[in-house]
């Protein structure tokens, strides 16, 4: 297990390095001179070439790309993501303010998708061919089909505008007003959770059906174990192995979905920040969001992979 952990950690550090290079080059490969983005259009008209060169030198943009990269990484590690070209504030402060909001919503959706999706999939597999199975399977198929932004609008229409049960916009810190916060996040968290619940149902069901065909399950039945023992002790542990991998992928799906859901519900989270950065052509913001999200997803996936090694001994020694 020790070498497995070390191997996975080294691998993750390598991948993280590539992630930073991709994000760094992404903005550098932009057509046009980054200095022109820093200067506003009005500055540009009355500025001489010498002054541009001075600014370029001050910003360090005249140095070799590799030096610039290490410089940038050095700053990023300390939480300095540069200055926003729009509001001239620190991008790092934006991230610090908005990351907890997305983590709050996304984390809840992630947990709900596990505690709802996996049991639904197990039930569908155990009751294969019954009406319950048909209902759960159809729900699963529908859930991976619904566009989350449309679902959000539908829920706003039904529960916000028609029934007037829940507030439909905004986000209040749970530390300020827990009740209002809970009301505000019910609909967005539901929207975020639907696709990962659906894919968990689908995969858990097919993986459990696969496992229940195995010889050791037949052995368990034939030695007279009750259904509960066969399912819980023998089938579940093996059936859940592919589902664990899926949860790593669905984390990225949830963060991707938060771009849409935060837009629909006007929630000032990371997803919304990326969209705002995109439309105001504030590339340092887009860069910071994608880097933070990528690092976060990698880190959680490392944890998932390690738990995978714990669940499935074959992985450890493979």
């Amino acid at each position: 297990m020790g070498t497995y952990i070390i191997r996975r950690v080294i691998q993750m550090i390598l991948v993280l390095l590539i992630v930073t290079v991709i994000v760094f080059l992404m903005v550098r490969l932009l057509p046009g001179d980054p200095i022109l983005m820093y200067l506003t259009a009005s500055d540009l008209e009355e500025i001489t070439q010498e002054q541009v060169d001075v600014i370029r030198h001050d910003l360090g943009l005249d140095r070799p790309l590799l030096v610039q990269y290490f410089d940038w990484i050095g700053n990023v590690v300390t939480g300095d993501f540069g200055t926003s070209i729009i509001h001239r504030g620190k991008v790092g402060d934006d991230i610090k303010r908005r990351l907890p909001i997305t983590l709050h919503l996304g984390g809840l959706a992630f947990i709900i998708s596990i505690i709802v999706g996996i049991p639904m999939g197990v039930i569908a597999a155990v009751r294969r061919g019954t009406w319950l199975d048909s209902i759960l399977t159809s729900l699963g198929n529908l859930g991976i089909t619904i566009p989350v932004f449309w679902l959000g609008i539908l829920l706003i229409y039904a529960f916000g505008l028609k029934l007037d049960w829940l507030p439909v916009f905004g986000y209040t810190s749970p530390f300020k007003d827990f009740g209002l916060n809970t009301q505000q996040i019910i609909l967005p968290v539901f929207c975020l959770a639907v696709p990962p619940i659906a894919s968990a149902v689908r995969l858990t069901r097919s993986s459990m059906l696969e496992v229940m065909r195995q010889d050791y399950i037949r052995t368990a039945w034939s030695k007279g174990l009750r259904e509960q023992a066969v399912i819980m002790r023998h089938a579940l542990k093996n059936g859940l192995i592919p589902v664990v991998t899926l949860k790593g992928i669905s984390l990225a799906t949830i963060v991707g979905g938060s771009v849409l859901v935060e837009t629909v519900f006007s929630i000032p989270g990371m997803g919304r920040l990326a969209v705002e950065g995109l439309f105001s052509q504030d590339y340092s913001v887009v860069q910071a969001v994608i880097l933070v999200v990528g690092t976060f997803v990698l880190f959680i996936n490392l944890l998932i992979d390690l738990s995978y090694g714990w669940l499935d001994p074959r992985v450890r020694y493979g």
Partner: protein
Amino acid sequence: MSEEAERGSELMEVQPHVNELRRFFKVFLGRPVVIFGAIIIIILLVCAAFPGWIAPHDPLKQDLKSVLLQPNNEHLLGTDALGRDLLSRIIFGARTAVMVGIVALGIAAVSGMILGLIAGYFGGITYAIIMRFIDALMAFPILLLALAIAALLGGGLVNVMIAIGIGMMSGYARVMCGQAISVRENDYVLAARSSGASNIRIMFRHVFPNCLPPMIVLMTMMIGMTILFEAGLSFLGIGIKEPTVAWGSLVNDGYKYLLIHPLLSVAPGIAIIVVVYAFNMVGDGVRDAIDPRLRGTL
């Protein structure tokens, strides 16, 4: 191999020749929901190819005397804030969905398969470099990556296709790589190498065709998802500009009039669901027909 089998059956009348294609369609069309999906897809393709013939009105023609109309005989789904016929706009949106879906899928599949093939075939350091790069791509949520790429390349339908394509290629690379690793161990690859075939030739003539079945399954299963990403990006207003009509932007346009005319948002969303559902069901059908062992893994 099939040639030999046919010759053999001629000579000594062994088992009757099983028609692969017939077997495929027998399993594929065995479930009603797959047939339903196939019919929807045919309707979608007809709409995408000839929207002008099917749409009752010009999707761009504004009529400020009849704005935000509720459904009536003239306008089956009503009109939007500029008096444009909603049904016609949804029909024209099919073209954007199909075009972006197919081209983005093609970009993702071709680039992902080539990278996966190279990584799996050569192994070693090539494998390590390419697959760590793919791992890095997978760390970014596809929608966010596509958004960032669209930001870099600027708007426009072509750039949206490239953005979604790059975002989705990692899945193809992974599956292709796994396939290539197992296929390259076969004796016919060794035979080709010992008869002096070049790496390129072995890769594309011998390894690639034998990796194809799961790739075809993966592609049909991902069309629906590609259309969903296109809808998401156009909902955010990325890439698709007037006068191009896309379902996602229709939902967004209608959002402002949710209280007065909810159908403006609801109807294009239903179009997305029906089409994505149809593609997913057909994808499941193709998977079961090509290789039932893939059930659950793809």
